[in-house]
């Protein structure tokens, strides 16, 4: 898992086309020729990553909008962002 610094901002890769469909987010990476999908909270995180955003900022917003404690939220987001990085969907801003 790539190391994520809580204060380093991430942003969506510019070549990704994202579609909001049926309450989910479907993304296509031209670079990889693959589809990715995000559901639920993932779609909201994706929205926030439209601008350079740090793990700490994301944790703050998601904790406000969803019923989750900060430690769990941060851990889940860390895994989720690492997955996005692994799949080339986001990059350091």
């Amino acid at each position, binding site marked *: 898992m790539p190391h994520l610094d809580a204060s380093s901002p991430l942003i969506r890769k510019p070549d990704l086309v994202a579609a909001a*469909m049926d309450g989910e987010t479907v993304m296509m990476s031209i670079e990889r020729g693959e589809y990715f999908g995000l*559901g639920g909270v993932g779609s909201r995180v994706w929205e926030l990553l439209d601008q350079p955003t740090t793990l700490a900022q994301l944790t703050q917003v998601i904790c406000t909008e969803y019923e989750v404690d900060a430690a769990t939220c941060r851990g889940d987001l860390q895994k989720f962002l690492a997955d996005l990085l692994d799949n080339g969907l986001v990059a350091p801003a």
Partner: protein
Amino acid sequence: MPSPTTVAAPVAGQGVADGRSACSPASRVSATAWAPELIADRLHAAVQSGALLKDEQGLHQLPPAGTGASPWLSVTVPQGPSVHCRFLMDFLFEQAYAKSAVPWGCRACYKVAVAPHTLAQLMALRRLQERGTGVTAKCGIEVDREITQNLYSGFYYCDGLEQARSVYRKVRDAVDADPALGPEVPMRIKRGCTEYEIHCGPSDRWAFDPAQAEVEASLKTQFKPPPPSTQPALKAKLSTLGRWLQTAFRIGDDSYLQFTGGRRLYPAPVSYDPVPPQEMADSSQLAPGPAHR
């Protein structure tokens, strides 16, 4: 394998003797569709060819479904008519009956079919289906199916023509009232699967023999239903939505741009004028008139 003579022989008590036929006008042949010895031969051949699997207990199984994204998204209603299409279509019709008879289990299956023209209309229909009509429904892409001219379709599974007519009225009203759909979206009631009409003739002429019911009940005890998908439901849904998006792009349905914020899935290739600009300018000076295009 049975000889052609055996296939054509009438089978007493299984539909021929009393003049009832299965789905084909060639009743002598089609009535044998559910003759147990022929079914046994067909199932054996299907296992040999790999079209069916047989487990250690002698139960037949369908090979695992492909790993690709399903073209369909469904809304299942527990109290709705049971839809055992993999048993009825993939096992009974395709293998046991070798496409020569419509399963007894499908005799009351009527569907309300909606044919959206665009992805935007398909998504609107999906919203309607999620709102519910009391019956199981599905919608998705059909453009890859060889046996239909529809690009997209939605279906509502009904138990009998009367229920189908009632569901049709409700769905027609909802479709007409939806600004993304409207009265121009075609709808109809059909019976069973399209494959049945291709192989067994028009559905208003199908006839069924109660003898089939026993045969099918017995075959059901020899059939092991496919295991539920191990893919998480959300992942499967996202794969399907991705396939819909990709298909819309591929067939030139630009309504997909409504969902991508106007961004194309792939950049449009640059096009070049077949006539060099200088040559065009010279030509228009010599002979004024329409540009060379």
